[in-house]
């Protein structure tokens, strides 16, 4: 399947949600990612399910997102490619721990679902949502921001290559507009 086909944005065959989580899962598998840590977000629900159900992927549920940054560095030390899933508020919890992949030039791939922007109803999400990208950049983490579904899947593939092949520290920010506003 080509990247363009993967990035169709069409509903999945079951019609139970967008197809991009499954496409990101395939991209991560193709990139030999076998390890995942997460603090959940509604936008990551399907991808968490897919990775957690994969017997070849080790999954850790975290109490705070910075744990995942340290775990990913340790996994790389031992030869394993790890991905960290969180929402934008969790990026604030990670700041000092990001020193570790930055100073050791250890691969880091973060997939961050954004809150506090498009059609946000909860004002408490706004300060950290606004600060997410500047905080990451201030710590030396490269950010790719996906506004459109057709960009998201190839962006994750590109970020994975930059992380695991070029020792990069990369976060893909999945915009709230792409995810759809949270409904209550």
């Amino acid at each position, binding site marked *: 399947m080509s990247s363009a086909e993967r990035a169709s944005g069409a509903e999945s065959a079951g019609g139970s949600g967008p197809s991009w989580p499954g496409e990101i899962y395939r991209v991560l598998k193709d990139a030999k990612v076998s390890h995942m840590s997460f603090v959940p977000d509604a936008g990551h629900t399907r991808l968490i399910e897919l990775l957690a159900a994969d017997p070849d992927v080790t999954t850790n549920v975290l*109490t705070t997102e910075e744990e995942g940054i*340290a*775990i990913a*560095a340790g996994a790389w030390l031992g*030869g394993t490619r790890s991905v960290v899933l969180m929402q934008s508020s969790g990026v604030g919890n990670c700041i000092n721990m990001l020193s*570790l992949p930055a100073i050791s*030039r250890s691969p880091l791939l973060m997939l961050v679902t954004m809150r506090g922007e498009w059609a946000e109803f909860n004002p408490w999400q706004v300060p950290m949502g606004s600060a997410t990208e500047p905080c990451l950049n201030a710590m030396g983490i490269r950010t790719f921001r996906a506004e459109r579904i057709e960009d998201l899947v190839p962006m994750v593939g590109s970020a994975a290559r930059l992380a695991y092949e070029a020792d990069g520290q990369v976060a893909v920010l999945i915009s709230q507009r792409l995810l759809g506003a949270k409904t209550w």
Partner: protein
Amino acid sequence: MADATLDRRPAVAALLKDRGDLLVVTGLGSPSYDVHAAGDHPGNCYLWGAMGGAALVGLGLAQAQPSRTVLVITGDGEQLMGIGGLATIAIAKPKNLVLCVLDNGHFGETGMQRSHTGLGLDLAAVGRACGLAAETVTDMAGIEGIRSRLHERRDGPALFVVRVRAENVSRSLPARDAVYLKNRVRGSLGLPVS
């Protein structure tokens, strides 16, 4: 602490005696110096920052290298900052991860301010509440017990809280270049370093 009779340097030296293929991650500050003083080794990954992360670096390494035992040696202040990590490790259940907290009840690197453990918190009890096999060690016989856990059994994550005297001993400084330290560990495991 009345029961703190161990000196940290001989305790760590005894812990690492005949270490075999043990992989060691150290928390910033005195634990890094203690492990370095016991003898530098390519299987040592010394942290100089990332406070609260030592046990979790150990978790990632243990999950990536299930055939090797990973020992994390850190201090009470460092582990307290990452106290939620005890819950994460207990749930992850790596059979090959052992945490050893050198507990002097103080933040030794910053002027010996008393820490939560120095003010009464029982870190081993916290570990047990999380679901870890955890015990407090106060003498050299206990250190030998940790060694047997490291080399003879691999039956789930364990936490040992080793009570040591609150004292600043002379520094024994390991390399600070994290890229070098990372590549040295990876090289010792036969992994690509470039």
